């Protein structure tokens, strides 16, 4: 006997839109003007600063030209070239930091995904104490990031930190192993972030699991499906869309995570933990090289748009397939 994957979306009843005429047009007479305040705010809060950031990325804007920044010397693509080759005085170029950020965000997302799914599965069905477990699962996620970073910094201090003490006690590593410097700093950052953020995937997956009706499981039981078959043929296909969204948001969040490395390592951070947001911050606000920081920000934005674009395309493809 085989269990067929069920379609993840039920075709919606066909809506037949009547052609509208004149002023009613494509908006169907809806009071579309009500969104103007929101659009105005979006333009003021996001649109204009974005345009200014792009403009700044072409300027030699530093402490000397800060006050009259509009008249700062135009350097064309100079800041972009510097960002991708030379980097700032700390040493890491935007390309190096980009590599660190990509590795950090992808790896963290990769690790927290199975943890989040497993955690969600453990509290999906009713049992005594489920509410308590659900609450406990959320603890790492609700702790402010700077507190998490401070605690992990203390734990990763070599010699005196809990991590070194524990590893030395079980004879895995030397008690004087450095975690906040050198290559280990990258892994320290990943571990701290995994601890703090796995609950995000858990929340998203749990929401998806709750939307799967009992009837589906009951039908699978009637067909004699095993737990593994239910997971792989029912649960995961049903979670596909919400999981894709969770992975996208998680990757973006980790890529843009500034607070954790900033508090854990301070400035300047070790090269292995010099993520792009930190590099941009140091370049702009500590070295007063706002043009370079602007160029790095624009590069970040372009890179961040790629997964978002892919996700939207995939979603549309799914909608077309479903319909």
């Amino acid at each position: 006997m085989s269990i067929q994957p069920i379609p993840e979306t039920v075709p919606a009843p066909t809506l037949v839109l009547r052609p509208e005429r004149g002023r009613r047009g494509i908006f169907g007479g809806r009071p579309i003007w009500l969104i103007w305040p929101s659009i105005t705010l979006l333009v003021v809060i996001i649109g204009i600063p974005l345009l200014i950031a792009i403009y700044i990325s072409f300027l030699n804007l530093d402490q000397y030209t800060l006050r009259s920044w509009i008249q700062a010397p135009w350097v064309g693509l100079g800041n972009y070239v510097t960002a991708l080759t030379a980097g700032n005085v700390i040493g890491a170029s935007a390309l190096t930091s980009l590599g660190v950020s990509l590795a950090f965000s992808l790896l963290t997302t990769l690790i927290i995904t199975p943890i989040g799914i497993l955690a969600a599965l453990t509290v999906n069905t009713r049992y005594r104490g489920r509410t308590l477990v659900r609450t406990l699962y959320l603890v790492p996620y609700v702790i402010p990031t700077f507190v998490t970073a401070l605690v992990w910094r203390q734990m990763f201090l070599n010699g005196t930190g809990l991590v070194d003490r524990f590893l030395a006690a079980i004879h895995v590593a030397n008690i004087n192993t450095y975690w906040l410097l050198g290559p280990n700093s990258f892994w320290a950052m990943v571990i701290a972030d995994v601890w703090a953020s796995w609950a995000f995937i858990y929340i998203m997956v749990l929401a998806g699991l709750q939307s799967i009706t009992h009837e589906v499981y009951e039908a699978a039981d009637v067909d004699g499906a095993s737990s593994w078959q239910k997971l792989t043929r029912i649960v995961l296909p049903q979670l596909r869309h919400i999981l894709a969204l969770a992975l996208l948001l998680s990757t973006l969040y980790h890529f843009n995570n500034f607070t954790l490395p900033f508090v854990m390592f301070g400035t300047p951070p070790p090269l292995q933990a010099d993520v792009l947001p930190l590099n941009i911050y140091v370049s702009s606000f500590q070295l007063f090289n706002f043009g370079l920081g602007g160029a790095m920000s624009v590069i970040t934005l372009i890179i961040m748009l790629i997964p978002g674009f892919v996700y939207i395309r995939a979603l549309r493809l799914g909608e077309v397939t479903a319909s």
Partner: protein
Amino acid sequence: MKANIRSACPWLSLLMLLSLVLAACGGGSGQSQTLNVLISYNSTYPAQQRQWMQQIASEFQKATGATIAWDTFSSSSEEQTKLQTSIVSGSGPDVFSFGTTFVPTAQSTKGFTVLTDQNWKQVGGKGRFFQQQLTMAGSSPNQSIAVPFVMRPFAMVYNKELFQKAGITTAPTTWTEFVQDAQKMTNPSAGVYGAEIDPSDSFDPWKIWWMFAEQMGGSFISQDLKTAQMNSPEAVQAVKFWFDWATTYKIVDPNSMAWKAGDAVKAFANGNVGMLIMTTSTLKPTLQKSSVAGKYAFAPMPTVPYGLQQRPANGVPAATIVSGDMLAVADYSNVKDLAFKFINLVTDYQHQVQWTKTFGDLPVNVQAANDLASQDPLTAAFIKAEADATPTPFTGEWGPLEVALAGVSSKLANEVATNRYDPSHIKPLLDQANQQIQSGLH
């Protein structure tokens, strides 16, 4: 009629939005004048600082009829961000408080009022203040932008008990003696080290290297402020000597490569460090609550380079930089008179004495400093140290230079931590930092 209402709706919503914006912008009009002041948050004495703010605000209101709106920053990063956004937007605090070494960078933004003779009279005259402090008030005596507020000379603090155990009777005056004394106190099996090192700190490395280099006759920037000299032999030797504490002389905790200033203070407070350099008298409250309470003493830092009996002819003691906080008035401020009255108030004799007694910083007011020095030998020693202080080069690139040297320190600490350290790597790193700073020198 219905159509008219519908067509009026977009205009109505726009009108409402404009009203909100205008209401937000014009919220303060029609009230008494307000002076916005940005100062550093005092985490050691938060309650006393609140009380001080209330008292000053009350006295200020009695004298001028104006109110004070306080704002605080808790880190140099926050301070810089507030300053940058204020300069760009042309609005924000009227009075800024910042560290002496940040004055050159602040002046390079051209966002602060250049003090006229009249302004100096308003704040009590230049004669009110320590002359050394005035060397960091502006790029030249005619281009001052900052008025001294408090001073904080650097010194070293040592553990008297560890000194006694090691048979040391007086604090070292040369770096050779310093290393020898530290070696006598070092006992790794007991977790005790003669000195400390914090190469992952953002500020300590440059201060310490600058002091070593100046004592050897070097300087990070030429006197005409046009040439970066961060890769000079003296600078290389300064960096090497500091890391030698960990790699050659073994007088510091081998686990200290990731340390910041706070970690070093904690180790000293726990009784695990013999000598803590580049510290100020403001550390006293922390130490008084620690296991070394009553067992520590302050002393000037050594002034003779390692391996020498005396300083080279062109070397300077540089036992401390001209250190402390200064007050500057934003150029965009429309209550500058009030700002100068405020500065006059907080730097007068009475308030300077009160500040010192409450917070431990030393007064910049000469009369207050002399009176306090006559009452307490420790204060007298610190005031003498400040009188001999050496100013850092007055260039707008000094802020980036500090960050660049912190970057060099971080990389070398990485190498030591991963057993890849080689002293020959110091010069190329300093070359790279020097090149970047040189490109910004105007």
